[in-house]
């Protein structure tokens, strides 16, 4: 492909493909977990405890990735765990983005007292250590999916608002905004039609990054047993359990950890790739 000046365009990056594929697989796995899981993720079988993954000696092919110390199937638990991880990632990420980006756009473009209030709030927010803040919030809100999502939105909106505010401010000073004003466009119209498209690449990158962060936050909260009811499988909960039997059964820790790592990495890589894709100058 060539652009108007005859320069060769960059191919969509490899990382976009790799990270996108992993996330797509994960989404399919989460959606179809009840159909493709070989076992009930809660079913215990103490006679089949700590079975190793399939390529090791003493493995049972019925438990592809092995079992934990209660004899539960790891693969099935991870598939169900993906449901929670992705739900939190998509819902919390999107909501955080909406709240933070909107406030950032208002502060950066409208300025004035709205900016004063929002910027002051951001300053106050930044003073709290986020993990402590999260645990505190969960303690107040109680455990559960909604609480996790609310906690993430409440804590992380500043990540968006700070960056979007700065970008909206610098875009707002450009001559094209002045021209649009002279042409009689309303302030809202300018914010949405002129400023927003220029901030969008950054917002997209932040959004996917935030989804990765949401996955981590959910894992941390599950790890300390603050996420949802304990009998529902979560990656963080599995990691916590696996940690106690790392020498007897490393796979109980390593598989969920690897899934977590790959997912967070994929989200951030997807963001970087999409950012280029959305940027007309780089595209």
């Amino acid at each position, binding site marked *: 492909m060539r652009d*108007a000046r005859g320069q060769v365009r960059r191919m969509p990056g490899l990382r976009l493909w790799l990270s996108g594929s992993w996330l797509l697989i994960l989404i399919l796995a989460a959606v179809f977990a009840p159909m493709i899981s070989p076992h009930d993720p809660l079913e215990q079988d103490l006679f089949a405890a700590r079975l190793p993954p399939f390529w090791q000696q003493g493995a049972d092919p019925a438990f592809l990735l092995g079992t934990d110390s209660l004899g539960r199937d790891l693969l099935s638990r991870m598939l169900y765990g993906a449901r929670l991880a992705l739900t939190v990632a998509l819902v919390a990420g999107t909501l955080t983005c909406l709240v933070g980006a909107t406030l950032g756009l208002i502060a950066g473009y409208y300025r004035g007292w709205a900016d004063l209030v929002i910027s002051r709030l951001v300053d106050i927010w930044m003073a709290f250590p986020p993990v402590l803040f999260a645990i505190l919030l969960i303690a107040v809100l109680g455990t559960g999916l909604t609480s996790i999502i609310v906690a993430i939105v409440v804590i992380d909106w500043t990540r968006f608002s700070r960056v979007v505010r700065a970008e909206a401010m610098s875009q707002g000073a450009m*001559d094209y905004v002045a021209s649009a004003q002279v*042409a009689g466009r309303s302030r809202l119209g300018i914010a949405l039609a*002129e400023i927003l498209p220029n901030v969008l690449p950054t917002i997209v990158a932040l959004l996917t990054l935030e989804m990765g962060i949401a996955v981590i936050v959910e894992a941390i909260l599950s790890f300390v047993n603050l996420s949802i009811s304990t009998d529902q499988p979560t990656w963080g909960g599995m990691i916590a359990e696996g940690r106690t039997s790392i020498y007897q059964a490393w796979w109980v820790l390593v598989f969920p950890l690897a899934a977590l790592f790959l997912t967070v990495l994929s989200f951030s890589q997807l963001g970087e790739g999409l950012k280029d894709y959305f940027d007309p*100058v780089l595209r």
Partner: protein
Amino acid sequence: MSYLTTKDLTVRLRNGAPLLRKVSLAVKSGEVRALVGESGAGKSMIGKAVLGILPRAAKLTGGEILLDGEDLLTLPPKQRRAKIGAKVALIPQDPLTALNPSRRVGPQITDRLVDILGWKRKEAEDRAVELLDEVHIQSPERVMRSYPHELSGGMRQRILIASAFAAEPKLIIADEPTTALDVTVQKQILKLIREMQERHDTALLFVTHDLGVVSKISQSLTVLYAGKVIEETDVRTFFAAPKHAYSRALLAATPKYTDPDGSLMPVPDSIISEVEQEVAAFDAQLKR
């Protein structure tokens, strides 16, 4: 009859520091008036005040702006914006930031026709093609589909000129439209603006700090220093015999086209302090 008149236009920073000191100027219908002054004199500020896009830090504290005989400042904001949008256009200084980088060029030209004047999109697009043709852009259809970064600086400035003339405004404010371009392109763009202005019979307020350009494009000029009008006259009189000492010094500081390498006198300190005193006296008189 003058199309744009400002009377005692006063703009101050929020802390009260004056940026424009009772500026009165007039641009007749179809006339080109140059607005000259060194950097920071407040040239752009006059344009912004007229266009109603003063920066947040500045505030219009007095005076009148008459557009086509109507006092803009007494109009309700919505009507004022509609009136300015329909009658006045801006050719901005920097073609690099004057087009939105993430939008295609076409809609950026047709927006105002569609939004403000209520044209049909198809009509507006035909008009845009016609205008791009008029500013000597080859294959206008392709250019309209391009993003700004795919075009050269000179091409972007042509597009901005086309865009300014699109709605047939009666007045165009050009804020140093050639400063950001290199010399060879500057001349073409200047010629183009002049050509378009004559053809469309538009009044033009041409902001520049280059007296050399003034003689080429305008019939009259206003010299500004520290937000105060120093001299207002027609071009012929000015170049023959500038009245104010500062104007004379400014003229001496401009390269001559007959002798581009000749020695140049920067405006002497004695004259600067003279104008400064004049401005201070003016301020004192206002306070009384």
